[in-house]
C-alpha cells in the first residue's frame, strides 16, 4: 500500500491543486493516441516524482503494473487479428506487427495510468481530498470515500483471505490456469467482504449526519501563488488536449498499417509536452532554486 506522508514538497500544495494535477495527467494519458507522446509525458511524471523524491515508491508500483500489462499484451496478440504485416505464423495462427504495436500502446497507457494513481496516492492526503470533494460535490463524495475505503481494505484484507484459503487447501500452485483460479477465489471473497464493509461505513456516516446539511471543514486550506501557477499550467494542458480532440488532430491509426509516431506529432502535442515539463521545472526550481523557501 502506498501511504501518504507529509514530508515532501509537492504535498505542500493545496490538495485541490494536486487533484487537478493528477486529473490532468490521467486526461492526457486517455486522450493521447501517439505512443511517443504518451511515453514522453510518462517520463515527465517520473521526473516530477524524482524531483520530489518519491520515484522509488512510484517505481515499486511499476513492477506490479508491468505484470498486468504483460497479460494485456498476450491477450491482445492472441485475439487481435487486424493489421497487414504478419511477423509470426504457425498454421492458421498469426501475429501482426500492427497488433503488436497496438497491444504495446494499450499496455503503456495502462502502466501510465496506474503509475499516475500511485503518484496521486503519494501526494494527495485522502482526508483533505475527502473534505474538499464532499464540500464541492456533497453527497456524491460518499461514493468516493467508499471507493477509497474499498481499495484500502482490499489491500489490507488480501493477506488474511490468502491465509485462510491456504489453510483450506488452496495452495496457489500449479499451471497458469490453476493459479488464476486460485487467485479468483481470493478476489471474489475480497470484493464481497469489501462491499459489505462499505455498506456498514455508509450507515455509520449517515448516522453521524453525513448529507443532512451543508458541511463545514475542520481543516481549511488556502491557495497560494504556487497553486495558481500549477493550476494555470494544468488548465492550459487540458485546453490543448480538448482543442486537439475537437479538431480531430489526435487521431492515430494502427490498422491496417501503423502511422509513424514521429510524423504524427502535432503542434498541440508539442505545447502540451512543454507545459508538462514546465510543471517539472517549476517544482525543481521551487525545491532547489533561489525561491526554495
Amino acid at each position, binding site marked *: 500500500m502506498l501511504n501518504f506522508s507529509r514530508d515532501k514538497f509537492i504535498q505542500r500544495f493545496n490538495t485541490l491543486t494536486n487533484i487537478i494535477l493528477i486529473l490532468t495527467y490521467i486526461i492526457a494519458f486517455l486522450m493521447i493516441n501517439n505512443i511517443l507522446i504518451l511515453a514522453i509525458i510518462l517520463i515527465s511524471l517520473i521526473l516530477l516524482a524524482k524531483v520530489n523524491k518519491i520515484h522509488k515508491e512510484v517505481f515499486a508500483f511499476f513492477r506490479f503494473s508491468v505484470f498486468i500489462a504483460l497479460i494485456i499484451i498476450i491477450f491482445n496478440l492472441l485475439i487481435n487479428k487486424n493489421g497487414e504485416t504478419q511477423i509470426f505464423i504457425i498454421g492458421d495462427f498469426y501475429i501482426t506487427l500492427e497488433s503488436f504495436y497496438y497491444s504495446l500502446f494499450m499496455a503503456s497507457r495502462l502502466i501510465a495510468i496506474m503509475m499516475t494513481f500511485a503518484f496521486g496516492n503519494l501526494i494527495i492526503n485522502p482526508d483533505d481530498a475527502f473534505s474538499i470533494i464532499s464540500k464541492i460535490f456533497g453527497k456524491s463524495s460518499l461514493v468516493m470515500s467508499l471507493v477509497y475505503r474499498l481499495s484500502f481494505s482490499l489491500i489490507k484484507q488480501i493477506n488474511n483471505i490468502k491465509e*485462510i484459503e491456504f489453510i483450506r487447501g488452496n495452495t496457489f*500452485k500449479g499451471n497458469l490456469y490453476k493459479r488464476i483460479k486460485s487467485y479468483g477465489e481470493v478476489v471474489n*471473497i475480497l470484493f464481497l467482504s469489501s462491499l459489505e464493509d462499505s455498506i456498514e461505513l455508509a450507515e455509520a456516516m449517515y448516522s*453521524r449526519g*453525513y448529507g443532512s446539511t451543508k458541511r*463545514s471543514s475542520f481543516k481549511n486550506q488556502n491557495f497560494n501563488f504556487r497553486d495558481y501557477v500549477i493550476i494555470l499550467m494544468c488548465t492550459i494542458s487540458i485546453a490543448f488536449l480538448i482543442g486537439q480532440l475537437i479538431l480531430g488532430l489526435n487521431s492515430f491509426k494502427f490498422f491496417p498499417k501503423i502511422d509513424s509516431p514521429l510524423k504524427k506529432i502535432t503542434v498541440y502535442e508539442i505545447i502540451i509536452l512543454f507545459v508538462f515539463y514546465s510543471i517539472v521545472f517549476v517544482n525543481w526550481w521551487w525545491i532547489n532554486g533561489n525561491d526554495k523557501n
Partner: protein
Amino acid sequence: MEMIKIKDLTYYYPETSRPALENINLTINEGDFVLIVGPSGCGKSTILRAINGLIPNFYGGKIKGEVLVKNKNIKDISKKELFKTVGFIFQDPEKQSVYNTIEREIAFGMENLNMDITRMKKNIAEVSNLFNLDFIKEKSINNISGGERQKVEIASVVAMDPEVILLDEPTSQLDPISADEILNAINKLNKDMGKTIILVEQRLDKSFDMADKILIMQNGRITNEIGKDEINIYIDKINFLPKVSIIFKEAGFKAVPLNIKEAKKIIANKNVPNKRDSNIKSFKDEILKVEDLYFEYSPNRPILKNINFNLHKGEVLGIMGHNGAGKTTLSKILVGLIKKFKGKIILNGKEIERLNDVERVKSIGYLAQNPTLYFGRDTVFDEVSYSLRNIGDFDREKLIELLKKFDLYGIMDKNPRDLSGGQKQRLAIACTVVTKPDILILDEPTRGIDIYHKIEIGNFIKEYASLGKSVIIITHDSDFVGDFCDSTMIMHQGEIVAHGKTLDILYDAIYYSPQISRIFKDKIKVVNSKEGIEILKRITNY
C-alpha cells in the same frame, strides 16, 4: 422528562414477511441507562436503528407506529436535529472510521452538522481529555489499538453533544481490557454527564451492573422491562444474565448476585465444602511436540522464543495472553503459514515442514477470527465442500452428515453471506472440521457471541476432543477456558510463562482467573462453572 417514546412500533425489513419488530411500546426517560438483551436476531439492533431513523430512512422496509424523541415524532424532526440529539455507535470500529487521522475523525460528525471551526476545536479538546485521547491525537487511525479506535468513534459522537447515545455491541470486537475501558467510558457518559444511554451488549458481567433498566427481547418483541432492583423478582424469566448470576441461578439461589463482590458476600458465612470431585483428565498419546521454537520478523526482535510444549490426543488446550504475546504467530507457524522459524515441531511423528499440502490440511484445521473471510462460494454446500475438493477427498454422503450435525442441512442451498451471525459461525466451524483435522485451532471463537452460543461451541469442542482429536483455543475468555479446556498456557512477550492443568494455572491467577475461582478464592480450588454450581448446590443443602 420522557426522552424516547415508542408507540405500537412494528417493522418489516425489505422483502421479508416476518416482522423484525412487533408492537413495541417503550418509554425511556432523560438520563436513563437502558440495557437491551436477548438472543441474536431478536431485534435488539433494529430497535436502536428505529430510534435514530436509520430505519426506515437507510434500510427501507415497512414501518407502523411512532417513534418520539423529546415528544416529537422523528418524522417531523430534520435529519440534522435528529442526529444532533441521538448519536449512534456501531460494533466494529474499523468499519466506522472515515478519516485517517484521529483529530479529523473526531471532527467528522461536527463537520456534518456544519459547526464552526472554533466550536469544533473546543469540543475536540474536551472529548480528547474525557476519553484520554490526547496522547494519540496526532496518530493515524490505522496505528492504534481496537479499543482506542472505538474510543475515537465514541468521542466523535460525543463531540456532536447528543442527549441520547445508542450503542450497538460496542465491545464485541475488543479484547477484555479494551472492552472494560469502553464500558467504563460509557458509564462515565451516563453517570457524570447525564447522557441517556441505550446499550445492546453481549458482555453482561459489567453492563448489567451499570444499567438502570433492562429490556429483554425475543422474536422482535420486548418480553420484559425490568428495573435493576427487580431482577430477583423476575429471575426465572431472564435467560441473559451475567455469568456470576447464572451460576447462582442454576445452583438454585433465589436471590442472585450481579457481580463478584455480591457473590462473595452471599457465601461469606456459609460452610463451603473443602473437597471437590476430581474431574481432571490425564492424557497419554502425544500428537504434537514443539521444541525450542524461536521466530522473529526482523533481526533481534523475537516474536516467539524458547517455546516448548506437548499436546496430546483428546486434549483441549487454551492459550491465553495479552495482545502481542505471540499467540496468533504461534498458531500461524503450526498451520504452516509461517515457515522460516527455528526449532522443531513434530506432528504425528513427522516434522511439520515435511508435510505435503494434503497432509497439512488433514492434520491441522484453523478457524480465524473473522468467519466472513471464509465465504466466497455460492452455497453453504459448496462452501463446506471447498476444502475437500481442494485436497481431492470429496464425499457427498459425509458432507450431508456433517451439514445435518451443524444444523445447516436445511439451508445448504443458501448463500453463506445471507445467513445469521450464529449460522455463519456454525458454518465456519463446519468448514474447518470437514477434513477431520487431528488438531483444531480456534482463534477467539467466543468473541462477540452470547453466553448460550458459547456453550454450544464449548460442547462441540468437548465432543470433537472425545473423538481423540486435539483442540487449541486462543482466547481472552477465562470463563470459557475454565469450563472447556483441560490444560492452559499463558504467553507473555513471546514466551510461555505458565503451562499446565487448567485448574492449577487459572485458580490462583490474578488477572486470568475465571469468575467462579474469584467467588471461591481461598475457600476451594475450582475453575469450572459446572463444578462451582455443584458446590453452591451443596452449600444450599447445608
